[in-house]
């Protein structure tokens, strides 16, 4: 064990405080996604897509990110299932509702983009876009800047299993592991086994997506992304490796998809996939850390808060039509002022 210090975190006991914090964020994230789906169904948004079922992985990821602006902090190239990560980083749930309702008050895009398509320069969260692969070739760019800047900032890129079929995923593996300049990139694939309506099994012959990293000499691992304790330890260990070694790491996290691909497929709850929140709550109850009543109370309180937020957002203004011409060109070099 002492021979592999970067792995030590895996064996560390997570404190009760940390477990309760993770649980609180997972519930908050789940309730948020449920509210967003309800908004869609009530006509308060044109489209829903998100990550219910990925909380056990996405929450610890957000907790462990060193958020801030510029190369000394982590750059986040996320995809559209990362709402739980954003909440764990400290985003306000009501702002996701504003994104859903495309209001002028939406702080991420001003009503221009879909729900889940966050953008926060203050925290190095680069604009999320709908293509499932384009974040992968951008990630090496921020990582080159971080490698050169020195320090412990890393680049984190996330995507789904279906997106790994795109050539851009190979681009990320190749550019991150160039012998001329290996890069500090944590390459994450949340494998929910689905590409819209198509099952992974019929399309992917590789045994594990993480096996693809091995061909490039990239440290690679497949983990149980439905277990928040495993996820926390594994992400912490992988991040420590990337931060200190300044080399890439490929992590495949096996997760569930609890409400289908998007509103295009109905967004209804499925019952044949493991629910990470249920599993974690059972464990917390067994360990005597929380009672069922406490957890029900938490959930009811967060649901009520989001319901109130929904009512508030419904009253907020839509963007001014004249604003379509705003921000076509930047007048200032904002990213260089960081």
């Amino acid at each position, binding site marked *: 064990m002492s021979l592999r210090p970067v792995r030590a975190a895996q064996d560390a006991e997570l404190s009760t405080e940390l477990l309760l914090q993770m649980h609180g964020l997972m519930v908050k994230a789940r309730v948020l996604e449920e509210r967003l789906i309800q908004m869609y169904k009530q006509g308060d948004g044109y489209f829903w897509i998100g990550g219910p079922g990925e909380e056990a992985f996405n929450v610890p990821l957000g907790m462990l990110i060193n958020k801030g602006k510029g190369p000394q902090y982590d750059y986040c190239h996320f995809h559209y299932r990362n709402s739980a990560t954003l909440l764990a980083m400290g985003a306000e749930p009501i702002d996701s509702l504003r994104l859903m309702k495309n209001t002028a008050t939406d702080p991420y895009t001003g009503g221009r983009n879909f729900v889940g398509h966050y953008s926060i*320069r203050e925290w190095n969260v680069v604009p999320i876009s709908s293509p499932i692969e*384009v974040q992968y*070739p*951008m990630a*090496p760019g921020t990582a080159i800047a971080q490698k050169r800047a020195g320090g412990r900032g890393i680049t984190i890129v996330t995507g789904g299993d279906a997106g790994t079929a795109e050539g851009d995923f190979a681009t990320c593996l190749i*550019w991150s592991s160039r012998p001329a300049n290996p890069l500090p990139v944590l390459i994450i694939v949340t494998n929910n086994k689905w590409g819209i309506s198509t099952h992974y099994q019929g399309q992917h012959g590789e045994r594990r997506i993480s096996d693809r990293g091995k061909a490039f000499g990239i440290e690679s691992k497949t983990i149980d992304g439905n277990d928040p304790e495993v996820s926390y330890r594994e992400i912490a260990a992988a991040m420590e490796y990337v931060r200190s070694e300044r080399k890439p790491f490929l992590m495949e996290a096996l997760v569930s998809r609890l409400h289908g691909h998007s509103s295009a497929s109905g967004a209804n709850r499925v019952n044949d996939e493991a629910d990470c929140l249920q599993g974690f709550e059972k464990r917390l109850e067994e360990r005597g850390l929380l009672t069922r009543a406490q957890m029900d109370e938490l959930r009811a309180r967060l649901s009520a808060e989001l319901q109130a937020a929904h009512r508030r957002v419904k009253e907020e203004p839509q963007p001014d039509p004249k604003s379509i011409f*705003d921000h076509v*060109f930047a007048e200032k070099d904002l990213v260089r002022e*960081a």
Partner: protein
Amino acid sequence: MSNMVQAIRMALHVAEERHGVTDIFGEDVGPPLGGAFTATQGLRTAWNSPLDERGIVGASIGLGLAGCRNVAEIQFCDYAFNTIDLLKLAGMMHWSSNGDWNCPMTIMTPVGSGIRGSIYHSHSFDATATHIPGFKIAMPSTPRDAYGLLLSCIVDPNPCFFLVPKALMRVRAAPGEEIEGEPGDDKTLSKLIDAPLGDRTAWKPQWPDTPDLFIPFGEARTVRAGRDLTVVSYGRTLPLCAKAADALAAEGIESEVIDLRSLHPYDWARIEESVKRTGRVLYVNEDTEVTNFGEHLIRRTTDELFYSLLAPPRLLAGAFVPGIGLADSLEMASVPQLPQITESMRSLARMEP
């Protein structure tokens, strides 16, 4: 006096020494080759990338987002077509984030015909580039403009296309259009900044002291004044238009030739002023003629200058065919050449209302 490729190299040197460029990269951009056209020889921050255009554009965006001014080369624009969605993404970075992010980056790529480059080394890119909002687009026709436009691209907070007409890369500056500080003698300059043939490992360039020259976007250059018709062009066809104008002067036709230089933003005020005087305008470029940038200029001309026109505005552009064939006869027939340009200008000047 420099040719265009040397002017580009000197601008890149100035940019990495004085304007914070951290990365000049792409296929064969770094040593030993220093660029397929030698544009990046001897540069301190030049490096070779994998042969992966999507990786190049993606890395350029990432570097830009991290505040690193960078110049990414796509070796021939023909190979940029598989990067269109990434380019669109770069173009929308500021807009889609509602003004939160910006993305300083320069995509430099050789464009157009003129080297018998066959189907995959002869494409134009101006029609495609002008369909990607959020980019600024420069396309020089002289070494000095290349120098000053490239520096403007590099310091701009937005993504920029720097389109380099292949046919003009080895053309030297006309007298009076040199870059301040460069040696007047070609051989002296070559000795200073051209990498030697063979082993270059010990070679170091000696850069002449050239200035911070920023030719602004949206400022065209009137190459030749005239009263009878206006010709608006850029890139390879621009010097041909100027040559045709000289020839037609002997017939008593005085053409005003405008080098647009910057395609977005573009200098409408200059076109407008000229066309109002001449009443006749010909747009010339070599991209395929359907949904060509010149068609946009014609639309605007008709919309805004209709009552000043003495003849229909015309476009002379590349044939709408899938590619440019290799044989000399095929290439010459696919894109505008001097005789067609001259004839188009003559017929437009003589057309009676």
